[in-house]
C-alpha cells in the first residue's frame, strides 16, 4: 500500500470518529452552529480526501452527505433524527469501505449497490426537505429529466420494428429508440449473442453540466471496445444556433457492443446513473429487411425446407436454402429471410421453432415476432433489464480499481511544460489577476495589488517575456501611489487586448483561444492533452497496456531532490503498534538482564571473594536499575490510551439500543481521559459493551414503568473511569430497577451453585455478586430476573484474564452499580516468590491478600477440610503440594508454623500452605505455549535475573 493511501486511511478514521462524535453532540444541541460547521468541515474534508483516489463508491456517499450537511448548516434542511440515522449509516458504510481498502487495497463490487442506495436516501432527504423552499428535487440532482427511452420501451420498439415486405422500411434514425442495423451488423451481433457473448445496448445520457466537471463524455464513450453500432443524438438545438450553449451537454450516446458487462461498468463507473445497459436477446437481431418482391413464393420449397428443419436435417435444409438464394435477387426481403434462416442454422441450430417461424414468414409476408421464441433458445435471454440506478451499479465490478501504487496518478511525474502548453495557463492567470483587481476595495488592497504584480511578474518571467516586467513594476508603483487598482488594470487590459488583436490580424490559430470573459476560471477544463492524460490514467486501470500512452511515466522525477527538501515538523508522531510492542519486549528483557547484576555481585563476593568489586557492581546496578525503570515507565506511557477510546462508542450504542427498546436514556460519561495500557483498554472493550447493553436491556425500565415508580421518564446511565493508585476503576451506574437479591439467591440455590447453609447466611451484596458465577445465567433466568445474569460470567472471566476484578452493588428500585478494577498495565507483573518442595513458584501480587504463618495448633479440620480462623473469619486451607498433586507434606518452620498465602479467589479468601515465602520481583509474564500451554493452574512463566525460569501459579485454576 502506498504511503498516500495509508495516510488517507489513518486520517479518515480520525474524521469518521470526529463525525460520529459531532453527530451525537448535535443530537443534544441541534442548533449549535459550531457543531454544524465542524461536522460539515469533517465530511467536506473527508470527501475531498477520498476524491484523490479512485473510490467512487465512497466519494459518492460522502458527496451526498456533504451536500446534505451543507443544506443543514445553511438552514435549508432541518436537523432531524432521521438525518442523523442516515448520516451515521453513511459513515458506517464509509468505515466498512475503509476496512476493505485497508485489507485488500480496493473496494469490492458488492458495495456499489449499497453506495447507490445510501446516496439516494441522502439525496432524497435533501430533496424532500428542501423541495418546498428550493427548486424541484430533480434539479437538485443536477440531472435533467429529459425522457430517456425506457428500457422496456426500447425492447418493445425493437421487437416490433415494423418492416413490411412492401416497403422494407427501416426505423427512422431520428427516433432515438431504435437501431439502424445493416443485415451484416445485425448478423454479427446475432452470432455473438447466440454464441454466448452477450450483446449490450447502452445508452449514455451525460448530465448537462458535465463539461464543467472536466468530463468528456465523448471520450468516455469512445473507450467502449467492440462497438458494432453506435449513434449519437443531439437532443435540443435552439432555433437560433447563436443561442446554443456549447458548454451544456445535450448529447445522448447509444451503442451496441459485445464488450463484457464488467468492462462497461468499469468504463462508466463514475456516471452509472447516466447510463442504461440492457442485454439484448439474440433473436431480437433477426429482422429480415429488403425490398418486396412481386414473385409469388415457392410454397413447395418452403414446406419441403420446413420439414427438413423439423426433422433436424440441417445440412440438407441449408443446401436447399442456398440453392434458393442463388435463384433470388439478393436485395429482396425474401432473400434476407433465407439468409437469416441460414444464420440461425449456423448459430442457433437447436432453435427449430424460431427457424421454422422465420421461414414461414415467407408465406405471411410479415416479420415474425421471434422474441416470443427466445425462451426455447439456448442463447442468453433478457436479463437485468432494470434501469434502476441501483441495479446498474450492482453490476459494477471495479476489478481494476486503479492500482494504488506509487505510480498512480497522484504521483505521476510530469514532464517539464513547454511554452505552448503553458500558454492557456498563462492567460488563465492573467484573467484571474483581472478578477482580483476588480474585486471590491478592502483594507488589504495594497497587499492584493502587490501580490497581483508579483504574480504577473512571475508568469511573464516564466514565459520569457522579460521586457514586460518593468512595465508591470511601473503600473504597480502607480497603483500603490493612488491606492487604486486602475493602473495595473489598465496595463493588464492592454496586454490582453494586444494579445487578442495580434492573433486576429495574423489570422493564425489562436493559441488555444483567449478566454472570453464569460468563461470564468472554474469553467476551464485543462486543455486536451491534459484531459487525455487524466482519462488515460483512468482508463489504464482497465487496460494496463494503454499506460504506454503516458510518455511522462518513463522519466520519474519523484523525490530526486529529496535530500534537500525541507521537512515540516509535526507535533504528533504516528507509530506502528508493532514497534512499540517490540520496544516493550526489549525493555522487559532489559529489566530481566539487569536483575542478573545482584546475582553477579553476590557471586563476586562469595565465590571470588572480591568484596570491592561486588560493591561496585551493586552501585552500577543502582544506576542501571533507575534508568531501566524510567525507560520502562516512559514506554508504558507511550502505550497508555485514554478510556475515551472505548467510551466514544457508547453514545451511539446507547442511542441505538435504547431506541430499539423504546427506552429513554441519558448517558453521562466521566473521566474519559483516564488512561491505561493499550492492551487493557482493548481487552476491556467487549466486557464493557456487554455490561452497558445489559444495563440498558434489563437494568433500566421503560418510560411508563419509570413514571409509575415516580422516577424521571429518562433513565440515567453513568459510565465513569477513575484512577486509584495503580489501578483503573470503571463504574457503570444506572438508576434502574436494581437486582433483587432474594431472587438471585433462590435461583443460585435451584441451580445448585450454593447450598442451603450458604443460602441462609449469605449477605445481600454477596448474593447479588452471584450473577458472576459460572453457570448462573440461562435463558430462563433472564426472563425471570431483571436479567442481570446474561453472560456475566463471561464478563468476569474476560476481566480476570487481564488481572482485573469485577463487582456489583444494587438496591432494588434504586439502581445498580457495577465496577471493574483493572491494572494500569499488564506488561510487568509483580509476583511473590514462594517455595514448596524445594522448588520456587510465583504468585501474582494482585491476588495475594496477606501472608501469615499459622501455628499447627490453630489449624482445625471441618468436614475433612483444613481451616483456620483469621481475623474472625474462617479461612479454608489448602496445601500447595496437594494442589499440584505432589505426594509430600508441607514443611513447617522451626516454630511449627506453616507459611500460608492468603489469596482472593472469586471474592473468597483461601489460604494456600507453602513451605516458605521469598521476595517479590517484577517479571515479564509470558504465557506458556506449546505442550505447556495446555497445563492448567499456571498463568505463565518468566525468566529470572539468574537465568532460571519461574513458573507463575494461577490460584483461580488451581483451587
Amino acid at each position, binding site marked *: 500500500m502506498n504511503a498516500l493511501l495509508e495516510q488517507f486511511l489513518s486520517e479518515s478514521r480520525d474524521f469518521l470518529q470526529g463525525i460520529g462524535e459531532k453527530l451525537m453532540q448535535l443530537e443534544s444541541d441541534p442548533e449549535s452552529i459550531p457543531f454544524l460547521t465542524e461536522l460539515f468541515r469533517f465530511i467536506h474534508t473527508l470527501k475531498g480526501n477520498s476524491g484523490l483516489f479512485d473510490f467512487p463508491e465512497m466519494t459518492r456517499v460522502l458527496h451526498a452527505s456533504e451536500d446534505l450537511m451543507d443544506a443543514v448548516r445553511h438552514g435549508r434542511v432541518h436537523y432531524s433524527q432521521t438525518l442523523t440515522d442516515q448520516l451515521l449509516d453513511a459513515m458506517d458504510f464509509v468505515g466498512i469501505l475503509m476496512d476493505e481498502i485497508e485489507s485488500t487495497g480496493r473496494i469490492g463490487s458488492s458495495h456499489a449497490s449499497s453506495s447507490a442506495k445510501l446516496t439516494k436516501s441522502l439525496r432524497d432527504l435533501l430533496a424532500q426537505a428542501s423541495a418546498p423552499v428550493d427548486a424541484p428535487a430533480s434539479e437538485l440532482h443536477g440531472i435533467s429529466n429529459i425522457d430517456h427511452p425506457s428500457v422496456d420501451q426500447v425492447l418493445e420498439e425493437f421487437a416490433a420494428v415494423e418492416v413490411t415486405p412492401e416497403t422494407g422500411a427501416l426505423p427512422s434514425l431520428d427516433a432515438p429508440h431504435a437501431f439502424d442495423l445493416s443485415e451484416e451488423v445485425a448478423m454479427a451481433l446475432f452470432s455473438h449473442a447466440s454464441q454466448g457473448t452477450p450483446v449490450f445496448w447502452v445508452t449514455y445520457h451525460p448530465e448537462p453540466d458535465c463539461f464543467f466537471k472536466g468530463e468528456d463524455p*465523448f471520450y468516455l464513450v469512445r473507450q467502449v471496445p467492440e462497438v458494432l453500432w453506435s449513434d449519437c443524438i443531439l437532443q435540443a438545438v435552439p432555433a437560433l*444556433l447563436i443561442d446554443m450553449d456549447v458548454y451544456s451537454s445535450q448529447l445522448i450516446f447509444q451503442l451496441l457492443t459485445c464488450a463484457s458487462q464488467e468492462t462497461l461498468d468499469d468504463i462508466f463507473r463514475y456516471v452509472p446513473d447516466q447510463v442504461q445497459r440492457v442485454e439484448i436477446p439474440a433473436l431480437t437481431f433477426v429482422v429480415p429487411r429488403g425490398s418486396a418482391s412481386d414473385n409469388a413464393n415457392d410454397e413447395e420449397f418452403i414446406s419441403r425446407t420446413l420439414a427438413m428443419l423439423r426433422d433436424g436435417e440441417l445440412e440438407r435444409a441449408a443446401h436447399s436454402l442456398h440453392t434458393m438464394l442463388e435463384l433470388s435477387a439478393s436485395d429482396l426481403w425474401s432473400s434476407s429471410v433465407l439468409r437469416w434462416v441460414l444464420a440461425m442454422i449456423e448459430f442457433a441450430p437447436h432453435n427449430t421453432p424460431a427457424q421454422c417461424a422465420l421461414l414461414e414468414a415467407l408465406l405471411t409476408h410479415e416479420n415474425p415476432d421471434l422474441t416470443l421464441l427466445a425462451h426455447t433458445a439456448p442463447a442468453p435471454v433478457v436479463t437485468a433489464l432494470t434501469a434502476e440506478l441501483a441495479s446498474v451499479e450492482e453490476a459494477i465490478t471495479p476489478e481494476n480499481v486503479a492500482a494504488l501504487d506509487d505510480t498512480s496518478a497522484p504521483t505521476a511525474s510530469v514532464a517539464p511544460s513547454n511554452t505552448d502548453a503553458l500558454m492557456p495557463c498563462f492567460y488563465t492567470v492573467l484573467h484571474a489577476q483581472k478578477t482580483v483587481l476588480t474585486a471590491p476595495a478592502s483594507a488589504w488592497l495594497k497587499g492584493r495589488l502587490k501580490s497581483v504584480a508579483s504574480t504577473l511578474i512571475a508568469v511573464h518571467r516564466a514565459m520569457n517575456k522579460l521586457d514586460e516586467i518593468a512595465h508591470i513594476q511601473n503600473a504597480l508603483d502607480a497603483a500603490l501611489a493612488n491606492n487604486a487598482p486602475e493602473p495595473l488594470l489598465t496595463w493588464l487590459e492592454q496586454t490582453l487586448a494586444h494579445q487578442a488583436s495580434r492573433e486576429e490580424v495574423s489570422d493564425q*490559430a489562436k493559441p488555444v483561444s483567449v478566454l472570453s470573459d464569460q468563461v470564468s476560471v472554474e469553467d476551464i477544463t485543462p486543455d486536451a492533452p491534459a484531459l487525455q492524460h487524466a482519462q488515460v490514467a483512468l482508463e489504464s486501470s482497465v487496460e494496463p497496456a494503454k499506460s504506454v500512452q503516458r510518455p511522462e511515466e518513463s522519466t520519474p522525477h519523484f523525490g530526486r531532490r529529496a535530500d534537500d527538501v525541507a521537512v515540516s515538523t509535526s507535533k504528533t508522531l504516528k507509530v506502528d503498534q508493532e514497534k512499540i510492542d517490540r520496544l516493550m519486549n526489549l525493555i522487559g528483557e532489559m529489566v530481566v538482564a539487569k536483575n542478573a547484576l545482584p546475582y553477579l555481585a553476590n557471586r563476586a563476593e562469595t565465590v571470588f571473594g572480591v568484596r570491592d568489586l561486588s560493591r561496585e557492581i551493586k552501585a552500577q546496578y543502582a544506576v542501571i536499575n533507575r534508568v531501566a525503570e524510567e525507560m520502562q515507565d516512559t514506554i508504558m506511557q507511550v502505550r497508555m490510551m485514554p478510556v475515551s477510546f472505548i467510551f466514544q462508542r457508547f453514545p451511539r450504542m446507547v442511542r441505538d439500543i435504547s431506541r430499539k427498546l423504546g427506552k429513554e436514556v441519558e448517558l453521562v460519561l466521566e473521566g474519559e481521559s483516564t488512561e491505561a495500557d493499550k492492551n487493557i483498554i482493548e481487552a476491556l472493550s467487549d466486557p464493557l459493551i456487554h455490561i452497558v447493553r445489559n444495563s440498558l436491556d434489563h437494568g433500566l425500565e421503560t418510560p411508563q414503568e419509570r413514571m409509575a415508580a415516580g422516577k424521571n421518564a429518562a433513565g440515567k446511565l453513568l459510565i465513569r473511569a477513575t484512577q486509584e493508585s495503580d489501578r483503573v476503576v470503571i463504574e457503570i451506574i444506572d438508576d434502574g430497577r436494581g437486582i433483587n437479591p432474594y431472587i438471585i439467591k433462590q435461583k443460585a440455590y435451584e441451580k445448585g451453585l450454593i447450598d442451603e447453609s450458604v443460602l441462609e447466611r449469605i449477605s445481600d451484596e454477596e448474593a447479588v455478586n452471584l450473577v458472576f458465577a459460572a453457570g448462573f445465567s440461562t435463558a430462563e433466568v433472564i426472563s425471570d430476573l431483571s436479567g442481570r445474569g446474561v453472560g456475566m460470567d463471561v464478563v468476569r472471566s474476560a476481566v480476570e484474564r487481564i488481572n482485573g476484578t469485577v463487582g456489583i452493588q444494587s438496591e432494588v428500585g434504586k439502581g445498580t452499580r457495577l465496577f471493574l478494577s483493572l491494572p494500569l498495565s499488564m506488561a510487568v507483573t509483580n509476583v511473590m516468590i514462594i517455595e514448596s518442595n524445594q522448588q520456587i513458584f510465583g504468585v501474582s501480587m494482585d491476588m495475594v491478600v496477606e501472608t501469615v504463618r499459622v501455628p499447627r495448633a490453630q489449624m482445625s479440620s471441618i468436614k475433612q477440610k483444613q481451616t483456620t480462623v483469621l481475623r474472625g473469619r474462617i479461612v479454608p486451607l489448602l496445601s500447595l503440594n496437594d494442589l499440584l498433586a505432589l505426594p509430600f507434606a508441607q514443611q513447617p518452620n522451626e516454630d511449627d508454623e506453616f507459611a500460608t498465602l492468603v489469596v482472593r479467589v472469586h471474592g473468597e479468601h483461601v489460604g494456600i500452605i507453602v513451605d516458605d515465602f521469598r521476595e517479590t520481583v517484577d517479571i515479564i509474564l509470558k504465557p506458556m505455549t506449546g505442550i505447556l500451554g495446555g497445563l492448567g493452574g499456571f498463568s505463565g512463566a518468566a525468566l529470572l535475573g539468574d537465568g532460571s525460569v519461574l513458573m507463575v501459579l494461577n490460584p483461580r485454576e488451581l483451587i
Partner: protein
Amino acid sequence: MGIEYKKSLAVLTEFVGVEEAENLLEWLLKNPKGKINLASCVHIHAANLQVLMAVKPTISAWPADENLQHWLSVLKK
C-alpha cells in the same frame, strides 16, 4: 493541436479541447459555408461534437482514426 481557422476551412488536429467549442461555433456561424477538415484529428471533446452536430457543416476530410470516424459517421447524415 486544436483548430486552425483558414479562410473557409477549419482544420482540426489531434486533440481538440473543450475550450475550442465556443470559437468553433462562432466561426461556423460566421462562415456558413466553412468546411471542416478532420484528417489528422484524433479526438474532439464532446462540446465540439455537439457543435458539429448542431451546425452540420460539410466535412472536407474524415479522420484517419477509424474509431473516431465510426463515431463521427453521425455527421454524415
